[in-house]
């Protein structure tokens, strides 16, 4: 029982902070007597949500789907591009330079262009997501694949290891932490991209709901959508965090608790070696 209590400490702290924020929000609205069309109270927001939960659920799901789909495609394309950039100097000089250049372009400006090209369906929304989410993945992966110890490669080459094995057994695992931190940035940007896409080309999703509510001056509805976007963002981020814990448990950022697990009675034996 005590163990369960201790193991959920991080989650309890998080919950307490969230509840604290909501409470503060409620108090501010009550004390400052803020009008509902400017800042609705949490109770009003929750009431609005509970009136038509399936409507919000459906729109959240649509937003989630576009974000995840776009993110998945960006991940796939990003990985392929990164491996290409690493393996060919020519691709590095052309593609990588081009990508870095494009990254400084505000992708929001591209959204209307995608609508012209792909129409107002989910294709243009995903195009916005990919154009925003791909950069952190490529930059993280290329950096990770490159920052390998040259002697590690030498060790493998001295054993006449094939290039493919060096890539999959040394370079790729070494690049994983860097790739995953790129993915964490990327997944948050994917949600941003989705909302931008929905603002411009959408008849469903939380982004277009916000836009419609703004037109109707329905501030409460806008707030419901914003809260839901926050929840979605947190879920997506922690999903990547979970993947990270599973994929790289050996990384220094995840292994503190494991260090104590090394049995001390063994350490004594080690010094009495062969001689």
């Amino acid at each position, binding site marked *: 029982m005590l163990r369960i209590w201790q193991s959920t400490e991080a989650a309890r702290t998080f919950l307490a902070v969230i509840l604290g924020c909501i409470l503060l929000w409620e108090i501010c609205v009550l004390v400052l007597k803020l009008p509902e069309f400017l800042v609705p109270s949490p109770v009003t927001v929750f009431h609005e949500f509970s009136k038509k939960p399936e409507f919000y659920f459906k729109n959240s799901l649509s937003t989630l789907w576009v974000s995840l789909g776009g993110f998945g495609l960006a991940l796939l394309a990003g990985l392929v591009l990164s491996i290409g950039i690493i393996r060919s100097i020519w691709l590095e000089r052309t593609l990588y330079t081009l990508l870095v250049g494009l990254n400084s372009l505000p992708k929001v400006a591209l959204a209307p262009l995608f609508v012209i090209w792909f129409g107002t369906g989910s294709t243009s929304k995903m195009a916005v997501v990919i154009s925003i989410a791909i950069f952190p993945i490529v930059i993280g992966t290329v950096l990770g694949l490159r920052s390998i*110890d040259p*002697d590690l490669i030498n060790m493998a080459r001295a054993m006449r290891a094939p290039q493919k094995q060096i890539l999959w057994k040394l370079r790729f*695992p070494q690049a994983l932490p860097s790739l995953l931190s790129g993915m964490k940035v990327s997944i948050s940007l994917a949600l941003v991209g989705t909302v931008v896409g929905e603002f411009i080309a959408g008849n469903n999703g939380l982004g277009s709901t916000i836009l419609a509510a703004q037109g109707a001056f329905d501030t409460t509805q806008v707030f419901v959508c914003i809260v839901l976007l926050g929840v979605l963002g947190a879920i997506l981020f922690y999903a990547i965090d979970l993947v990270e814990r599973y994929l790289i448990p050996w990384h220094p950022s995840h292994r503190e608790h494991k*260090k104590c697990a090394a049995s001390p009675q063994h350490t004594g034996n*080690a010094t009495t070696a062969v001689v």
Partner: protein
Amino acid sequence: MMDSYLNISEFTKVYSSPRGDVHALERIDLDIDEGQFVSILGPSGCGKSTLLKCVAGLESGTRGQIRFDGEVLDGPPQGLGMVFQRDLLVDWRTILENVMITAEFMELDQKIAKKEAMRLLELFGLAGFEHHRPWELSGGMRQRAAICRALVGNPRLLLMDEPFGALDAMTRDELNLELQHIWLQSKKTLLFVTHSIQEAVFLSDRVIVMSRNPARVIEDVRIDLPRPRTLSTRGSAAFGQYVIELQTLFERVGVFKGE
């Protein structure tokens, strides 16, 4: 000359840098017999690590050639084991898996290789640690695992590039003894790069002395000390004689100028 196991002849390596050509190795001539323990001793920057990389086929020379077991070297030869100053164990593999990476890279029979890996780990006092992660082990234990990784493919030629340079003095002594023990058992040809005179004399049949600027071999000293050598060997008069001889040599080429 053609009969020696490892033959380096007229080997020169020149780097071109913006400030002109750098002669990393200058006309190296060496013959090493099978089963010999040979140390390459020299101050830092004398090109001894470069020479080792060239023998491994990881780098090529500008002139001259290296022949290993009758064949001119062109890339890493078959049956090579290599140990570096850093252990180069990867964190995402356990100790056993790290050792077994050799079997995967060399495409050896996994079952036989695993048996050999376990035998080596036990020999080096790492039994019980095979499922630990590298970061859970001390520096000396990690380097032991790296040596196991090099040995698991049963190499014909073992190259060691200052393998104990990063360890504390006590661990270094331990590992010197363990290395001698395993070498006496297997009689592998071993090329050992070091900048410690004591270590070179203690371990080797032969010490090749290199100087810096130009990077060339200046002496080839045979060490006639009975084996197995123990830590007390280092207190013997003969051992001291060798150390003094080598020190004098370095003084002559200006390495210990400050003293």
